[in-house]
């Protein structure tokens, strides 16, 4: 961080949440964390050069309470990054099929509550995260990454 600032540059930390692109075995091993996403829709199997594709695991749908916890976790992560680690800001990773993108797009979000269905409902999670992060560190320290047209997850 110091080296970046000494050379008169800035550095933002990218905030990720994986949702259905996570690995349930690792989540379990690292602390019994649930494998969760907007809806219980797995990633489509990856095409394989040899043999059949392994079936990706099916996530559990987040409860509304858990969605609120995620929003607060983003805010805390932003605060840690800026106030404690010394980053100049944070970028919310809302692209490439990770959790925020999963809420935005109908392919991964078939919820029937306030977080699914209409454009406004599917945008709700991303906007709540953005609002909480802005409140934590200030608008001028927050960017967001979006990929309207990407069909892929595994590159960044």
């Amino acid at each position, binding site marked *: 961080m110091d080296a970046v600032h000494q050379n008169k540059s800035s550095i933002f930390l990218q905030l990720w949440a994986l949702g259905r692109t996570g690995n349930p075995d690792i989540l379990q091993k690292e602390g019994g964390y649930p494998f969760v996403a907007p809806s219980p829709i797995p990633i489509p199997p990856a095409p394989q050069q040899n043999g059949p594709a392994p079936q990706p695991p099916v996530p559990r749908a987040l409860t509304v309470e858990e969605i609120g916890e995620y929003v607060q976790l983003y805010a805390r992560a932003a605060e840690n990054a800026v106030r404690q680690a010394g980053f100049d800001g944070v970028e919310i990773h809302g692209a490439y099929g990770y959790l925020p993108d999963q809420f935005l797009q109908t392919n991964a979000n078939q919820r029937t509550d306030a977080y699914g269905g209409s454009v406004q409902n599917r945008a709700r999670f991303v906007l709540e995260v953005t609002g909480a992060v802005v409140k934590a560190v200030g608008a001028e320290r927050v960017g967001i*990454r979006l990929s*309207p*047209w990407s*069909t892929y997850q595994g590159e960044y």
Partner: protein
Amino acid sequence: MLIMYVAGMGMSDPIPTFAEVVTRIRDDHPGFAYIHVLEPSINHRPKDGTGQKESNKVLRDIWGDQPYIANTDFGRDSAIETVEREGGLISFAHHFISNVSEK
């Protein structure tokens, strides 16, 4: 190592949803640092020509003069050309990632 899953994203018309996100951020958070948007990829564009309509122009127009960072597939010339035509900024990543498993 990057694991290449097809993530099953890419809904048929993403613009209304992403336009809502960009509009609300513009209206609710003055001074927001930037939006960093993946442009429709030339490499991933469908061969049947359906991808020709893909454009982020609507998002650029909503965002106006605030910082807009475009990303994907840019080289020196295409980056300069895009900024001269559209304004904003360009980000580069692929050339700086070691052991990238695609491209």
